[in-house]
């Protein structure tokens, strides 16, 4: 039985989208193999960006955007698989245990502090900031609610990455405190004020 979701797809646009996306990715692959100049590289990326339009014609605006990267990923994996030396893959690899090195060990206290910052503290700070925005935003309830959810699940990971990368822990810590104060003030002005 054919799918109801496929029935509305335009086959001509689908073919064009598939061909354009594949051509863009193949061009990118050739640039990578032959170390071609930046013009070809930009052309490859350009074709892939342009191919989003026929994807949208085939599937519809939002479904098209969702399908395009899936197809590109599939073509990229096929090209990678096609270029790999599979004969070598059949050979076993023995992992040698190296000599013990007295490497630089991060103290447990500092490591725990970093995770405390990246986890609960960043969650608190980003939630505070997002709730502050929610309180002050003039958007409708639905837009604020969904906007707040999206901000939270994007801001918190960014804060996690910053906290886990920055060698000076005080910087993300300070940013978290500032975000919390800002969010708290915005919230207080709306709810408490």
């Amino acid at each position: 039985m054919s799918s109801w979701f496929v029935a509305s797809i335009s086959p001509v646009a689908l073919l064009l989208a598939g061909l354009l996306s594949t051509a863009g990715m193949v061009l990118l692959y050739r640039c990578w193999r032959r170390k071609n100049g930046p013009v070809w590289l930009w052309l490859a990326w350009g074709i892939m960006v342009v191919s989003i339009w026929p994807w949208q014609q085939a599937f519809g605006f939002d479904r098209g955007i969702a399908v395009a990267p899936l197809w590109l990923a599939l073509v990229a994996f096929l090209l990678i698989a096609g270029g790999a030396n599979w004969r070598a893959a059949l050979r076993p690899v023995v992992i040698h245990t190296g000599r013990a090195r007295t490497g630089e060990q991060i103290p447990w206290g500092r490591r725990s502090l970093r995770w405390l910052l990246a986890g609960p503290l960043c969650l608190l700070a980003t939630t505070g900031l997002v709730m502050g925005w929610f309180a002050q935003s003039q958007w409708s309830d639905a837009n604020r609610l969904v906007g707040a959810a999206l901000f939270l699940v994007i801001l918190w990971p960014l804060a996690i990455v910053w906290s886990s990368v920055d060698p000076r822990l005080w910087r993300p810590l300070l940013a978290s405190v500032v975000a919390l104060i800002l969010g708290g003030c915005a919230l207080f002005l709306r709810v408490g004020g």
Partner: protein
Amino acid sequence: MAKGNGARSAFVRLALNGHSGLGLTLSALLYIVVFSGSVAVFYPEFERWEQPAVPEFTEWQPGAISRAADAIMALEATRTDEPPDHLFIALPYTDMPRFVVHAGESGAFVDPVGRLGAPVNHEWTHFLTDLHLRLSLPSVWGLTLVGILGVGLVALVIGGILAHPNLLKDAFSLRWSGSARLRLADVHNRLGVWSSPFALALAITGAVIGLSQVLGFVVATLFFEGNTEAATESLFLSDPKPTGEAAPLANVSAALETVRSLSPEMKPNMIIVHEPGTTAQRVEVGALVPGRLVWSEFYALDASGELLESAGWSDGEPGVQVYASMFRLHFGHFGGLPVQLLYLLLGAGLCTCVAAGGSIWLVRRRQRGMPYPRLERAWLGIVWGAPLVLVLSAIGWFGWAWQPLYTFWIGLFLSVVIAVVSRDRVYLAVGLKVLLVMAILVLLFLHVALFGLDAIGPAARLINGLLVVSLLLVSLRLWVELRWLIRDASTTLSLGSRGQAADS
């Protein structure tokens, strides 16, 4: 210039450390969520596979819906005096050609005339979706934990890209001839980079779905005097207040006709009657929207089938439409079988990426002279144990009605314990794959034995076909590893006994 390069490499090192630390913290649970999610893409097909003998059709006779609704309400009334909160009717269409009715605890399939048939029994599929959505934990706790894992996956994708200085230079490299760490790193990086838009889309939508209850609670507490329903009423149609006064059941057929005449291009596929058989009852009709990602459009109608309002999921405010689009984007249910297969492939790639990520860290520890042999084996116990115990949970359910929840979690625990106490990592890896191949074979035979020709009928052939494909793929991998063992037995074993391990 040199200083700039030094600063850059220091940043990359820090980014890599952060990425490794976060990945290691989340790896086991993230792997289970990603793996179960990749399988759960086919949950409607698994439901059909669990009961392949149920009649399938897409057209039904006039009056069948009302007859089925009356029949299931009568059946529920024989079970309890309490009126059900909801009456749910799933209408058959090409992607799910089964007519189902539910009222309270009673659920049954319906024939094209409207007569009740076999009871609905999708215990294993429910376990699978619960495993992915909540890691089998109680609702809010599990959803929140999985939501946090989604946030972690977003951070891992961003951190991984930051930690990858040669993103374009290595865009298509897969160096099988290199060292074990290089092999694993290439697999991890290529899969990670090219599937990053897919991973981000899944992680963000998963995090929003998972954290929505907690976020709704926070918003309700701060802005709506603790009333969660008021906080979220802009996204959903509200439920009527129960009156408890009996009334004839709402005219669901009339409600369906109203929606059909309002939006002929849409495909109504579900009817929900809130507070059925009471004066408070209200009908909700869900209709698929062609060419859109939104889950459905929902219409609220009164008991006589007159339109009251629509939820605006397809044409309402941007926030409502974005929210309504998250589910199909997350589940991969917006382009039929081709998109589901792409989700399965990329999901398997994401599983491999997580598995390889953990292995890279373990190999690096070993090469630095600080191996964790027990952890190496435990990781194998999770990576290959999870698919094994998932198949065993299906065998246990079909064969002896064992609760899949217990089979899976007890099985996974045992898999890790056995892995930790086992002596040889290479034999462990091969042993787990042999068991997986055997388990898939047993499941296939069991399905055929139980359902006969229905096991290769339209309701079950996709899942059984995918089982055969996975059987072939695992067998291929097993054959490669057995070849290593047989050809290089002496080398591998002697190296293994000296504290070295073959990469498997």
